[in-house]
């Protein structure tokens, strides 16, 4: 058995992420209200909803950045509240809106994260990632000098540094040009299908969500209002496509 992927021995139907009855209150405001879902091995789960729906709060709770008010989060079968370190060693995260140390070069930055995730043969891994994300010539460039698109690609390279079994991606293609965005989607589908990486994904690009998500969890005002395959969600709301459903729900202003 591959030592880095002990869960390979688990049945493929076993959920990698199990969220049950998740609640988050900020004072009197309930940002996340009794949310439950799971992410299976090798599955791409799209988490969507209008601004303020609670997507980012859910992701932050899954990463251990924010403490839930109630509910349980189990990842790889472990309770996140008690096994944060073990879980995060096998997980990674990328967001187009998060920076990396801007005084460091791309290579230095990835070396630091390779160390944090205890990556073996980090230089070879970094070379491989720079080629995957089409920036092999940028290794010595300081992060501060990167364009928004290059920054997004670096964030994605960082997210793949530890060959994660679970990827949490917050609008990873938001700042990418159509070519790189398409290649990124292809890569995400490839790692999910071939390497059985589980991906929890948020995006405001509904076409993208329909294309690559195996299932969707639709959040509105902190509550889950629909789950299922993209086509099922579209038909449940009698829409033409996911974008039409999204607009309908967002403009109704009620769950």
């Amino acid at each position, binding site marked *: 058995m591959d030592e880095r992927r002990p869960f390979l021995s688990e049945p493929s139907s076993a959920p990698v992420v199990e969220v049950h009855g998740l609640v988050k209150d900020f004072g009197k405001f309930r940002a996340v209200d009794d949310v439950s879902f799971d992410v299976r091995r090798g599955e791409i789960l799209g988490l969507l909803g209008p601004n303020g729906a609670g997507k980012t709060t859910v992701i932050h709770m899954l990463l251990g950045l924010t*403490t839930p008010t109630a509910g349980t989060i189990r990842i790889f079968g472990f309770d996140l509240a008690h096994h944060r370190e073990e879980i995060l060693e096998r997980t990674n995260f990328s967001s187009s809106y998060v*920076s990396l140390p801007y005084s460091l070069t791309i290579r230095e930055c990835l070396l630091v994260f390779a160390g944090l995730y205890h990556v073996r043969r980090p230089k070879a891994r970094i070379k491989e990632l720079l080629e995957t994300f089409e920036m092999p010539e940028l290794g010595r460039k300081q992060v501060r000098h990167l364009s928004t698109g290059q920054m997004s690609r670096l964030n994605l390279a960082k997210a793949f540094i530890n060959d994660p079994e679970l990827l949490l991606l917050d609008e990873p293609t938001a700042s990418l040009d159509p070519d790189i965005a398409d290649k990124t989607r292809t890569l995400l589908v490839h790692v999910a299908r071939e390497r059985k990486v589980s991906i929890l994904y948020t995006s405001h690009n509904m076409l993208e969500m329909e294309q690559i998500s195996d299932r969707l969890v639709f959040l509105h005002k902190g509550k889950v209002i629909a789950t299922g395959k993209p086509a099922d969600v579209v038909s449940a709301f009698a829409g033409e496509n996911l974008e039409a459903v999204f607009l309908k729900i967002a403009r109704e202003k009620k769950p």
Partner: protein
Amino acid sequence: MKAHRIYALFLRYLYLYKRSLPRFMEILYWPLLDLLVWGFVSVYLARSQKGIPNVVAFFLGALILWDILFRSQLGISVSFLEDVWARNFLNLFVSPLTIAEYLTTLMLASLVKIVLAAGFMALLAWLLYAFDFFVIGVSLVPFIINLVALGWAIGFFTTAVILRFGQQAEILAWGVAVLFQPVSAVFYPVTVLPPVLQTVAKYVPASHVFEGMRAVISGGAFPVSELLWAGGLNLLYLAASLVFFAFLYRGVKKKGLLARVGE
């Protein structure tokens, strides 16, 4: 705690200094100016024969030791602020890095700054004013340990407040240690202070270190009781600062502020 994660984060601070002349100068520039000003003041006082024996040693020894306290606190707070300014905090804390590993790395970064700055000041004091800082002898070891411990305690306290209240509180990173200077009896004996402040000084570990330093330079005995008192206070303050940090850190996670540090 995992050594590879501490090393990786430490590497991040080394990379920062490798490429940044202003950051490197910050370690050398202020100590140089302090040393020049206080060096000339002490030379003037020595020449004017005001009846203060060992005045150069008193002032320059005190200056270097004070800088050790100040740098040890800055080493914690400013290294933390580097992550805040870079908006890198979120990426660090979605990795397996633990808060204990993070604080340990801040302490290591602080030690490097102390060695560089104090070494530079000691060398300059010897070259410019013929003052050998190491004449204080083995007493230097407990003096320095006590000052570093107090600096770290202040550093953890200020870092926790910045973590909780955001960048509006970052002025504390430079200001809090200086608050302790008047009652630390750095350049004058505690007896100079008004009675109320003498009582306050009793509970400031640094005041015992500086009193001890003056005793040693004057040829007096090793100030065992002063240092035991300072060590006890430091243990208490260090533990209290870590409890305070842990308390605010839990609150920050509860309020969802950890993901917003640097915004």
